[in-house]
């Protein structure tokens, strides 16, 4: 076991997870308390949420307990630059789909950003690969599977 008794006080990640679980439990409990439809027989739609809420509270408290007993496994340092590139790509993808930019451009962005996050330094080449990949997928879905993926100005040229 990797329990290190050296860490003074509480393990921060375990405390945070505990607090988050309690917050989720509060949401579930509050939502159940606001419901209007109740059933005549047996148990209604609120019973299960209350059970889940209780379970989440118990797990949250257990995390507090664990926080003082060695805590969660200690992860290695993360490469935040890499994560940032990928997350940025994914956010840009949602924005692109939401604003009607179309599937192909969205895929181009995601492919280029992810490859950059994994350490490649050829953003333009990767963007081109992503573009071709996106276009091929779009056409396969449109022609072979007759399923229209989100179309922007670019895609309309092909359909």
């Amino acid at each position, binding site marked *: 076991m990797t329990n290190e008794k050296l860490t003074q006080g509480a393990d921060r990640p375990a405390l945070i997870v505990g607090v988050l679980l309690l917050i*989720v439990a509060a949401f579930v409990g509050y939502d159940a308390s606001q419901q209007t*439809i109740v059933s005549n027989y*047996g148990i209604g*739609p609120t*019973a299960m949420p209350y059970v889940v809420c209780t379970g989440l509270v118990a*797990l949250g408290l257990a*995390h507090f307990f664990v926080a003082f007993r060695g805590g969660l496994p200690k992860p290695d340092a993360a490469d935040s630059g890499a994560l940032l590139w*990928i997350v940025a790509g994914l956010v840009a993808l949602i924005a692109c*789909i939401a604003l009607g930019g179309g599937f192909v451009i969205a895929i181009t962005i995601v492919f280029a950003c992810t490859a*950059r996050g994994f350490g490649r330094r050829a953003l333009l080449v990767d963007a081109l690969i992503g573009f071709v990949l996106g276009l091929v997928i779009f056409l396969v879905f449109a022609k072979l599977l007759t399923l229209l993926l989100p179309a922007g100005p670019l895609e309309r040229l092909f359909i």
Partner: protein
Amino acid sequence: METTVALLNGFSVALEPSKLLFCLVGVFLGTAVGVLPGIGPALTVALLLPVTFKLDPAGSIIMFAGIYYGGMYGGSTTAILLNAPGESASLATALEGSKMAKAGRGGPALATSAIGSFVAGTIATLGLAFLAPWLVEIAVKFGPWDYFALMIVAFVTVSATFGDSPLRGLTSLFLGITLGLIGIDKLTGQARLTFGVPDLLNGVEVTTLAVGLFAVGEALYVASKRFRDPEEIIPIRGSLWMTRQDWKRSWAPWLRGTAFGFPIGALPAGGAEVPTFLSYSTEKRLCKYPDEFGKGAIEGVAGPEAANNASAAGTLVPLLTLGLPTSATAAIMLAGFQQYGLNPGPLLFAEKPDLVWGLIASLFIANVMLVIINLPLIGIWVRLLAIPQPWLYAGILVFATMGTVAVNASPVELGMLFVFGYLGYLMRRYDYPVAPMVVGLILGPMAEAQLRRALQISLGDPMILLENPISATLLGLAFIALVAPFAMKGLNKFKAAED
């Protein structure tokens, strides 16, 4: 006798040329995706689900069977050649397999795993074909309380056996059950936990959660620690074929692996880890060359691989007869069935015998195809392993996005996919197992529905769960499985204090 007739009927469905083609495409795609590092069978099935979206149910379910077995086989290739098991079930294979590959015996390692998978898959599928109708007969007598108790057993075993901390497993499970509450309550029409967002009324899609947790989460996790462990492909040297000696040393482990895998896989407790490691340690003990273990003993690949495949067929027993998924892959398969409006369970055998038996028959066919196409094509699969990591993960994210967009092209759905992805990353980072969450999302609403049905019948008396012998026994088992790890821990502590 009845089973034989039904199975022959199944073959007449599965041997239609178009169905054979679906099966072949499934096996091919499954292997191609499954062989990619970091992608296990669960993710393979989740990523390829949208591809089968527009086919007819029989065709797509058959393609599914091919994808499933193909993904399993691809996973073991990665485990052997990269020492990067895509899922915990191929951990045991990687132990000896990668050592064999390093020693220049990658070919025989792949061959024994392919042929072992074939032997185990065929025997286990036979087991499935003969066990299923018998179990269906029992299952029709099950009341809602029994189903509820069965699901509780699955909850407990899935969260306690995945990962090494029951607390983290249960946390993952409860988060999944919480997600399962979202949406319109099926019995009363009450909207729960939707907070006025219309996209949430239909609930959280299982595939969105699975692809987010497995694919996006894995990509983020690998990116976050990419300097640390560069993966190295071990080239295959020497002959691909097994020597006479290899055959002699492989056949018994195949059969023993199957004997471990199928029954354990078929239990509602499920899981492929237990049988694979059981098989590994058994082979280690029985092996005539014990000093080879740790340096690449062929028994250590043959046994666990057979156990892995046999348990995969085993998990189909509760899935098809009871509608009970006991592994992440089975959970996603269930989502696939539901996508076509099919509900696995005893009724499916009565209503759609063609489909069920066609599926079982195509499992046999998929197995045969795997051996035939995989050994000669091994060169292609190895080349797939050599895709540079940046392109590989960029491609995985593209496919993850494609799958989600194809089913529901809304920014909210994509947002959920990425939030789940980030959650999956954090869970991996702090060693929370992700599979229980997927199982919780699928089984949570089912368990709730069964419980409420049970309590409606008993007019609200919860004692009905304990008055029926089957449900009472199952609940007792679940309780023991839940308490045992904590009790054992307490005992260990006691021992440590004594020393």
